[in-house]
C-alpha cells in the first residue's frame, strides 16, 4: 500500500467515522448551535469535494484505464509516472481516459486534479504476461568435469520490458551434442529463476536453453579441456641441438588441450639452462633447444609438470 499524507487535506479534522468519505454525524447536527450547522455544512461540502477523483488502484501494463471525476467546471489533470509526465485541461464530472501507451511501464502513477484545491489518487501498473526472457549464462568457457561450474539466471519480462513478478515456470535444459546433461523446471521467485549444475565430461559446445511456454532463449557455453594430464615428452638430437616434442597433450578425461596452450620446455647442461615457451599446434608442442653436451630436458604447462628426459652427449 502506498501510504501518504496529503498536505492539501492536512487541516481537516476528522469528525466521527468516515463513511464513503462523507462524515456521518447527522444526529449531532440537530442539537448544535447555528455556527456549528454552518461548520458542518462547510465540512460536508469539503468532504464532497474530496470525492472528485476515482481511479482503479491497479492496471495491467498496456491497458487503458479511466478516472472518473465528480463536480463541475474545469480543472487541470496531471499524470506522473515512470516515463510519463503529462498535463491537460479537463472538465469535472466527465471521465478522464488514460491511454494504453501512457500506462506501459510498470510502477506507481500519481494522478492529480487541480481545481481548487488539488486532489490526487495513485494507480499501480503491473506487468502483463511474459513475452520475453533475459537469460544470463556463465561462464562462456568452462573446464570439463567441474562441479557447479555452469549457472544460468532467467528474468521474465513482458512486451513492455516490465519484470514479471508473478511466478512463472521456466524450463532449463543443457545438452552437449546429442546427450542431455540437465532438464529442470524452476518456478520464478521475485521475478527470477536460476540453476547451477556441473559441466560435462567432453570438450565441445554446450547448449543451454531456457523455455517459458513458446518462448525460448538459447546460449552456448564452450566446454574446454582441464589441466594437462600425463604430460610426456620425447626428444632427439639434430644438427642444431635437440628437438623436443610432447605426446598429444590431453587432460585426464582424454580431451585434447586446445592449440595455443603454452608448454615450457627446459634443458639443463653444463652451459646453463635453456627454456622455450612453445605453443601446442595440432595437439603437440615442439621446441628446438641448443645443446652440445648431455642434458636433462623437462616440460611443464601451467602448474603441471611432465617427465624428464636425459639426452646423452653428442657423439
Amino acid at each position, binding site marked *: 500500500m502506498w501510504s501518504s499524507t496529503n498536505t492539501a487535506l492536512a487541516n481537516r479534522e476528522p469528525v466521527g467515522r468516515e463513511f464513503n468519505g462523507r462524515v456521518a454525524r447527522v444526529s449531532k447536527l440537530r442539537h448544535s448551535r447555528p455556527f456549528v450547522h454552518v461548520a458542518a455544512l462547510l465540512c460536508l461540502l469539503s468532504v464532497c469535494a474530496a470525492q472528485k477523483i476515482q481511479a482503479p488502484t491497479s492496471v495491467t501494463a498496456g491497458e487503458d484505464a479511466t478516472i472518473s471525476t465528480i463536480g463541475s467546471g474545469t480543472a487541470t489533470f496531471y499524470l506522473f509516472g515512470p516515463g510519463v509526465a503529462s498535463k491537460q485541461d479537463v472538465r469535472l464530472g466527465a471521465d478522464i481516459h488514460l491511454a494504453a501507451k501512457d500506462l506501459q511501464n510498470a510502477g506507481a502513477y500519481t494522478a492529480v486534479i487541480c481545481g481548487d484545491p488539488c486532489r490526487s489518487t495513485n494507480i499501480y501498473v503491473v506487468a502483463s504476461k511474459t513475452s520475453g526472457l*533475459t*537469460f*544470463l*549464462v*556463465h*561462464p*562462456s*568457457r568452462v573446464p570439463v568435469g567441474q562441479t557447479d561450474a555452469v549457472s544460468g539466471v532467467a528474468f521474465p519480462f513482458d512486451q513492455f520490458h516490465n519484470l514479471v513478478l508473478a511466478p512463472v515456470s521456466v524450463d532449463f535444459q543443457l545438452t552437449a551434442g546429442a546427450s542431455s546433461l540437465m532438464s529442470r523446471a524452476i518456478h520464478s521467485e521475485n521475478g527470477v529463476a536460476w540453476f547451477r549444475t556441473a559441466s560435462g565430461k567432453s570438450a565441445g559446445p554446450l547448449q543451454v536453453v531456457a523455455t517459458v511456454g513458446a518462448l525460448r532463449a538459447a*546460449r552456448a557455453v564452450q566446454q*574446454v*579441456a582441464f589441466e*594437462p594430464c600425463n604430460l610426456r615428452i620425447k626428444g632427439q638430437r639434430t644438427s642444431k641441438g635437440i628437438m623436443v616434442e610432447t605426446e598429444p597433450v590431453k587432460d585426464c578425461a582424454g580431451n585434447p*588441450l*586446445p*592449440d*595455443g*596452450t*603454452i*608448454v*615450457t620446455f627446459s634443458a639443463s647442461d653444463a*652451459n*646453463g*639452462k*635453456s*627454456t*622455450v*615457451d*612453445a*605453443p601446442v*599446434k595440432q595437439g603437440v608442442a615442439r*621446441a*628446438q*633447444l*641448443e645443446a652440445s653436451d648431455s642434458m636433462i630436458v623437462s616440460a611443464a*604447462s*601451467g*602448474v603441471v609438470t611432465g617427465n624428464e628426459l636425459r639426452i646423452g652427449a653428442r657423439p
Partner: protein
Amino acid sequence: MKFALPIILVAGTVALMVLAFFGVGVSASPVGVAHGSALPGLTSKAETPEQAVTNFLTDVQRRTWDRAFSSLGKASDVDEPTFIEDWTGTRGSLRSLSNLEQFDFRPLHASNDEAQMRVRLRWTTPVGPVEDVRDLRVAHEGDVWKVVWPKEPIPNVPAQVIPVTYLRWDLVTGGATDEWGSRNVDAPRVRITSMNASESAEGSVVMGEVVNEDTIPAFVNVNATLVDASGHPIDEESSFDKIDHVLLPKQVTPYRIDFPNTSLKNVKNVRMDVKATLVPASADPVIGVMDQKIDSDVQGKAVLHGKLLNQSGQTVNIPHVIASFYDNNGKVVWVSDGYVDRALLPQSTERFAVEIPRSLAGKIQNFHVVVNQYSLGQS
C-alpha cells in the same frame, strides 16, 4: 652608470661559461674516474687516452657522427653507416628511442701504445634509465690517441621463407545495442599461484607468480594493497612493467610490486588483486632463452645472463626479460627484469643480463625466465 648593468650581465655570463667548462662536473665522481655529459664547448686535442675517450663520447652524445667517426683509429674495422647504427639503433629497437645522457670511464690498463677503458654509459629511454658497460680500446697514433671501434659480428642468417602457423586470437567486441545477457564472453581466468612479501633496499616488495588457467590469452595486471593491523590500507601499488602482461593459455609469469620507502613492520596483511581482460594475441614469435647462468659481471655484480634466440620470422623490436628466482623451497625470493636495447632479428640471438641483489645471490637455487616482447605494428 648606464652601462653598468649590461657590463655586469656580460661578465656574469662569461664567468658562468668558464665555470661550466672548467669547473666541477655535473656529478661528483671518485678520483681517477673521468666523466662527462652534454656540455657546450670545444674539445681538447686527444693527447691522452682519457681525452680521446672523452672527445669521442662527447661527439656521440651530440650526435656529431662525422666527427666521431673521423676520430676513430685506423685499426677500426667498420664503415660509417654501421658505426652510426651501432649507436643509434635500428628496427625500432629500444636504442633507437634512447639518448646518451651521461658517461664515465676508468682505465683498465694502459701502455705507451695502447689502453683499455671501461666505459659506463647511462641512457635515457622510454622505459627509464638504462646502464650499459663496455670496454673501449684506445690506440696511440702519431701524437694523438684514438678510439678503435670493433666490428660487430653480423648474424649470418640465410634468406628464407618461414611460414607462420602458430595460433592467433582476435577479439570482436559486441555491438552497442547488445541485449542484456545475449552476448557474453567472460574475462579470462587467471590465478595468483604464489605471493611473497619482503623488505628490499628501497622499501618493500611483493612478488610471486600468476598463471593463465584459461584457454584464451589474457592481459594481466596484479595490484597489491598493504594493510595495517586495524584493516586500514597503508599503500597500494601495481606491478607496472615487472610482469609479462599478455599471458597465453597456461603461461606463467612472475610479478614484482615495489613499495618504495615503506617498511613491512606495520603491515599485517597484503591484499592481492589480479585483473585479467580479453586481448588479441599471437603465439608467434617463439623466443628461446638459452645458456642461462648466474655469474658475476665485469663490475662484480651478480647477474643472470644468457641469450635470446628468436625462433620465428618476425623481428622483435624491444625484448623485455623478466626472471624469477627461487630458494630451495621453491619460494620466489626475487624478480628481476631488464630490456635488451637491440632488436631481436629473426633466427638470431641477442645477449641479456639481469641483476640479482647481492644479499640474495647465495639463496638462489633455481630461476625461470620469461620474455615479454614489443613488436611494432603487432598486437
